[in-house]
């Protein structure tokens, strides 16, 4: 075998690389730029193709959010054709989206961001009995025995003794911003190990309904391709349906008793982080989990909040809402594309104009989406604030449970407004997961009830008119509001633009110089050690970005004082 040492990080991953530049002044961030260093332009591959096939390509935009791009694509074409889809198809799609989101949120919290807050190196000093007693006082989870905690601790001790730190070889261990007591760190690590088992069960549901994962195979413009026949072994039958329920029933308590509890414990023990990282406080979420063929009623609400004022919340009643279709534009002033005037996505152009990184000029491949000219934050925090403000019962229920859990640990009263922060985004994501977990059972029941009434329809064939039609497909994805905008001319795609959640959140400044959510949220973040900018990572991670990143720290003169390559 070859022995040459080379960089095998696979090349040119689709979402590109995120670079964050911050200026630090007096121990906190004074200026920030978020830049995507790779051009996507991937939509261009769709021009001239059959709209019925677009979803196969769009789910290759990105390797983690495959499902969401497939779903937004078929919805966009159905919207252009005003094509209703059978209720069974809605419920099957909803179950896929629910389980995809549960998987994604668990992975994000435990695998991708918990170690920003949990110092693994303190775990050998924990007391498994006390740690387990603490966990038992916070929830009824059956996996909180001291034996379970002891075994997790032994695992870490084994890694340390062998000198083979494996995945823990890098990390800002011992950083002054790490504040959790060893017993809490052990609790979080034990649940981190358990998370691997439960996230997989959610993924199995996606695989059963989608035919395979990654890259589901069961969609079609007009519905789904899952044959329903309760008498057939080969089709969707009661055995298959009960297997889904069995898997969901295992995941639900993990989300409600473990994930939500751990996120609340972190918030209670890092109270400062409920004050940092607010940034752009205009919020947007689109409605999702449609309940009927026309997609005119939903189980998850959408809407807009301006200036962090919950009383200002305005609902979207459906994805076809006129305001959403009119209000979204993309601005190229600071992005490496020709032109600067804001364009509506249906008229959007993607013509590259690369200049180099210019602080006051163009500095990123991400366009700046705006809503009636305003930057918007999207994601679980927007979902929770919009739902809470609009009186959505499940959102209110789980938010109140979360705030009570934070109070139980810290003795501090935290309000829904405090969630407008770096830590608040983590808590909001866990609340959203709890809301969705409750809807998993409900949508399974909808599907079974509908089938038991004798309805086995899953597909309405699309018909493409001569001439031009426009459509928008929205999905409230784990990372926030996703919209695919299509123009179909004589049955072929003549324009395709995806406005993805990370485009909203990683947006650069616009014509008016208004920064995007990442940029604004980093301002006034403390930086204890500029060579180890853990705090920057915490805030950027709280958005769950879908780009690989390089994080640079500059002093006010602009000279790099640390360059942290983040892989």
């Amino acid at each position, binding site marked *: 075998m070859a022995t040459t040492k080379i960089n095998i990080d696979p090349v040119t991953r689709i979402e590109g690389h995120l670079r964050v530049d911050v200026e630090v002044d007096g121990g906190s961030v004074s200026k920030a730029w978020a830049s995507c260093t790779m051009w996507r332009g991937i939509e261009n591959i769709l021009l001239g193709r059959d709209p019925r096939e677009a979803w196969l390509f769009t789910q290759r935009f990105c390797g983690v959010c495959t499902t969401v791009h497939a779903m937004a694509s078929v919805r966009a074409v159905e919207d252009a054709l005003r094509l209703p889809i059978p209720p069974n198809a809605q419920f099957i799609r909803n179950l896929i989206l629910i389980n995809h989101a549960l998987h994604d949120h668990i992975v994000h919290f435990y695998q*991708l961001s918990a170690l920003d807050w949990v110092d693994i190196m303190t775990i050998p000093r924990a007391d498994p009995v006390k740690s387990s007693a603490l966990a038992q006082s916070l929830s009824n989870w059956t996996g909180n025995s001291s034996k379970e905690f002891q075994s997790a601790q032994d695992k870490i001790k084994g890694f340390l003794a062998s000198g083979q730190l494996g995945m823990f070889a890098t990390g800002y261990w011992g950083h002054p911003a790490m504040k959790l007591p060893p017993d809490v760190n052990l609790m979080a690590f034990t649940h981190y190990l358990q998370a691997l088992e439960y996230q997989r069960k959610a993924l199995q549901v996606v695989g059963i309904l989608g035919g395979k994962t990654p890259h589901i195979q069961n969609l079609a413009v007009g519905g789904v391709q899952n044959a329903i026949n309760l008498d057939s072994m080969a089709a969707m039958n009661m055995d298959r349906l009960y297997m889904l329920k069995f898997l969901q029933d295992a995941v639900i308590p993990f989300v409600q008793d473990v994930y939500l509890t751990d996120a609340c414990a972190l918030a209670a023990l890092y109270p400062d982080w409920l004050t940092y990282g607010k940034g752009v406080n205009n919020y947007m979420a689109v409605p999702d989990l449609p309940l009927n063929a026309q997609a005119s009623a939903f189980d998850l609400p959408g809407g807009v909040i301006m200036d962090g004022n919950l009383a200002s919340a305005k609902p979207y009643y459906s994805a076809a809402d006129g305001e959403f279709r009119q209000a979204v534009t993309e601005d190229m002033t600071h992005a490496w594309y020709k032109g600067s005037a804001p364009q509506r996505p249906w008229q959007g152009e993607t013509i590259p104009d690369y200049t180099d990184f210019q602080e006051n000029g163009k500095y990123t491949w991400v366009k700046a989406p705006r809503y009636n000219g305003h930057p918007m934050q999207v994601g679980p925090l927007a979902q929770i604030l919009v739902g809470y403000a609009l009186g959505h019962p499940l959102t209110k229920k789980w938010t109140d449970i979360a705030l009570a859990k934070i109070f139980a640990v810290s003795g501090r009263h935290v309000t829904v407004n405090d969630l407008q922060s770096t830590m608040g985004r983590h808590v909001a994501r866990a609340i959203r997961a709890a809301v969705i977990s409750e809807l998993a059972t409900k949508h399974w029941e909808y599907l079974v009830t509908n089938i038991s009434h004798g309805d086995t329809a899953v597909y309405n064939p699309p018909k493409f008119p001569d001439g031009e039609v426009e459509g928008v497909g929205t999905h409230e994805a784990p990372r926030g509001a996703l919209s695919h905008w299509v123009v179909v001319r004589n049955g072929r795609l003549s324009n395709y633009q995806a406005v993805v959640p990370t485009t909203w959140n990683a947006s650069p400044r616009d014509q008016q110089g208004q920064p995007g959510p990442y940029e604004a949220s980093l301002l006034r973040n403390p930086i204890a050690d500029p060579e180890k900018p853990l705090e920057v990572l915490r805030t950027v991670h709280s958005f769950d970005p879908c780009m690989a990143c390089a994080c640079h720290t500059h002093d006010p003169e602009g000279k790099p004082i640390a360059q942290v390559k983040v892989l």
Partner: protein
Amino acid sequence: MTPRVLIAGVGNLLLQDDGLGPHAIARLQAEYEFGDEVELLDIGTPGLDFVDYLVGRDVLIIIDALSSGGEPGEILTFDKTQLKAFFPGMRLSAHQPCLQETLHTAETAGIDLKEIVLVGVVGHSFEVGTELGPYVSRALPGVLELIVEFVKRHNIAVTKRAQALPASEWWQAEVAVKA
């Protein structure tokens, strides 16, 4: 006991040479018949959720495009020790498919992969497009042979189909949309 083998094709199908993994999986499925203990998976560009697919496997064979390390079109292989020697970095993103991190996470989770091998080809064209560039295209048959050889080493039967099935390469030409 016969080991359970996962052959995972990694890469982005929409970026020419980066699509080597998915292309190779489609060709293997069309041209060869593998025993039940072997699963072929076009896994795209996974993040840490790659770990979810490793549970219950003994042998992992990865096919991926390489950004450097040799001349365009050159085939390089790496074993478990070599792969794990690369350091896991910190990450900001769910989409950074840091292979080493996947392998380390799998180990932390108690997934015991006895053998891991990566078969890579140094790429050259990474623009938007679903076709492999000329260098990687020429290397593809050699990649398939290597994969078959690795599988056979575990006493697993692999037979070349007398007549290849039509490859499920939906990206090559427009497919009739089923329903």
